[in-house]
């Protein structure tokens, strides 16, 4: 996904004079083309993420359109106050792109995992949280973020993730993308879990269970119309994310559900990382196993929730 980001931001920079790209000392060579087409608009801000985000706020206040890019865990956790005040309180047009989000950098350990980031950022008033499902969804998501008159956090994976969408979808903030329709089960996938959702749905279909899939590329604001549809039409609705079961899509959905005046027909099942640190050395696939983010675990839990 990060290569698609670099490619798209470079295209945008060729059309927009106000674009500036700030990086937290990562993306070696990734932005060479951006630097070529947009000289003087790329800033390696070093290993100083708090400073980077406040600088972006000052640039935005002066009429530029900054995009900050670094590893999601470093862009969010230590910088939360700068994000809250300089971006949120001042409602500045700054786009934060957190790369290697969730368990993407699993093998680097919990220092590099970001499974609480969305829970933190979702609390900041006026800040939009996006997590596109693949690189085809990322490109229009970036354009949607540019049209939003305030701060946006875009959470992306690393590289080589499977591409799910055939063509670039019509992305809109606050709108989910329905990939396949289902009658009994819906899997609402966030970010890089979209390919897993499609696999699990295919498994369920092969067992005779009608299963829909939606990409919840916009966590905040949430597509409550879609939630209304699936919770009244299906029996089981699952949320799926490389994020803690606390604070992210599962929680946001549960919050919405609890506030509904009429009892929803469907039952909510959440898939995410547990409330503990991962201490073992793992690759992303093993980390997903640890969190139960596998086709086997999902189909088993969803089948039993149906019965």
């Amino acid at each position: 996904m990060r290569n698609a980001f670099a490619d798209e931001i470079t295209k945008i920079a060729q059309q927009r004079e106000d674009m500036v790209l700030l990086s937290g000392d990562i993306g070696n060579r990734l932005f060479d083309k951006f630097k070529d087409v947009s000289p003087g608009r790329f800033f390696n801000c070093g290993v100083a993420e708090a400073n980077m985000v406040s600088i972006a706020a000052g640039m935005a206040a002066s009429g530029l359109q900054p995009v900050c890019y670094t590893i999601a865990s470093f862009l969010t956790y230590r910088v939360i106050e700068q994000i809250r005040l300089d971006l949120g309180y001042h409602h500045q047009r700054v786009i934060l792109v957190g790369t290697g989000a969730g368990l993407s950098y699993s093998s680097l350990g919990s220092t590099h995992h970001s499974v609480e980031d969305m829970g933190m950022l979702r609390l900041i008033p006026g800040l939009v949280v996006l997590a596109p499902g693949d690189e085809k969804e990322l490109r229009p998501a970036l354009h949607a973020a540019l049209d939003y008159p305030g701060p946006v956090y875009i959470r992306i994976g690393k590289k080589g993730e499977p591409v799910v969408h055939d063509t670039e979808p019509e992305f809109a903030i606050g709108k989910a993308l329905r990939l396949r329709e289902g009658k009994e089960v819906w899997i609402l996938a966030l970010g890089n879990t979209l390919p897993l959702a499609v696999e699990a749905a295919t498994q369920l279909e092969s067992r005779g269970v009608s299963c829909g899939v939606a990409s919840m590329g916009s966590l905040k604001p949430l597509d409550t119309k879609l939630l209304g549809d699936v919770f009244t039409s299906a029996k089981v609705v699952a949320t799926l994310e490389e994020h803690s079961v606390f604070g992210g899509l599962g929680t946001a959905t549960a919050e919405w559900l609890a506030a509904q005046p009429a009892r929803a027909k469907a039952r909510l099942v959440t898939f995410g990382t547990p409330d503990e640190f991962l201490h073992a050395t793992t690759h992303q696939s093993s980390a997903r196993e640890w969190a139960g983010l596998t086709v086997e675990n999902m189909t088993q839990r969803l089948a039993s929730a149906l019965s």
Partner: protein
Amino acid sequence: MDHTKLKHVAAELRGEVIELSHRAKTPHLGSSLSCIDLLVALYWGFLRIDPKKADSADRDRFILSKGHAAPALYITLCRRGFFSPQLLADYAKDGAALAEQPAPHCAPGVEWATGSLGHGLSVGIGMALAARIQKHDYRTVVLLSDGECNEGSVWEAAMFAAAQKLGSITVLVDYNKWQATGRSEEVMALAPLRDKWEAFGWESYEVDGHDFGQIRAALVRGELPDRTKPLAIVAHTIKGRGVSFMEDDNNWHYRIPNAEELAAARKELGVE
């Protein structure tokens, strides 16, 4: 304006700041009084600003990063004609535009909402880089407190500005030797503060922060063309400056003056 007149303006502003604290029962008086002369030096003769065009794209930017001295900024801006005295009369009341610490876009001339320390310099660097990109020639000045220099983000910003050869930014440190609950030197070993800025790649000077001649002489260094180093002015100041019973007494970080103290302070300042 000559220095005698500047001193008179500063004395009047000090009187107003003390009156504001007394009336609204708001703290941080000592911190406001220590930076009044720096604000007067900036707003009378240095900053290229037009109170009638507070949002003009090429205005000089000033960020009061030590947001707790907001009353000093409000009174300065009001005196320079950025907004009406009525705004000041409502200071800190429910629903007022001017809060104890500035909110975003709270009044013309207030560039940034500060109050959490360690943000203003980075934001100012963003504004200064925007000037470079957009080919404006405005200068950016950021006023920090010495306690604020405890924040690591200040030093992240310092290193970055030097790496960017950002000659259009000036830092003033209101070095009043106190922070909220102790001597700034004892809490975080701040000295030698000028050397620290130098070591971080800045051109740096120490001045008497109550001497207009010295402050101006240092500020104009920042106006030299083709500068490649940011400028840090370490201004030695006295917390509570101007009122003998408040000077260097850190109780006035939080104390509110009563009517007798207000009268005594005004008398001493010669602004009864």
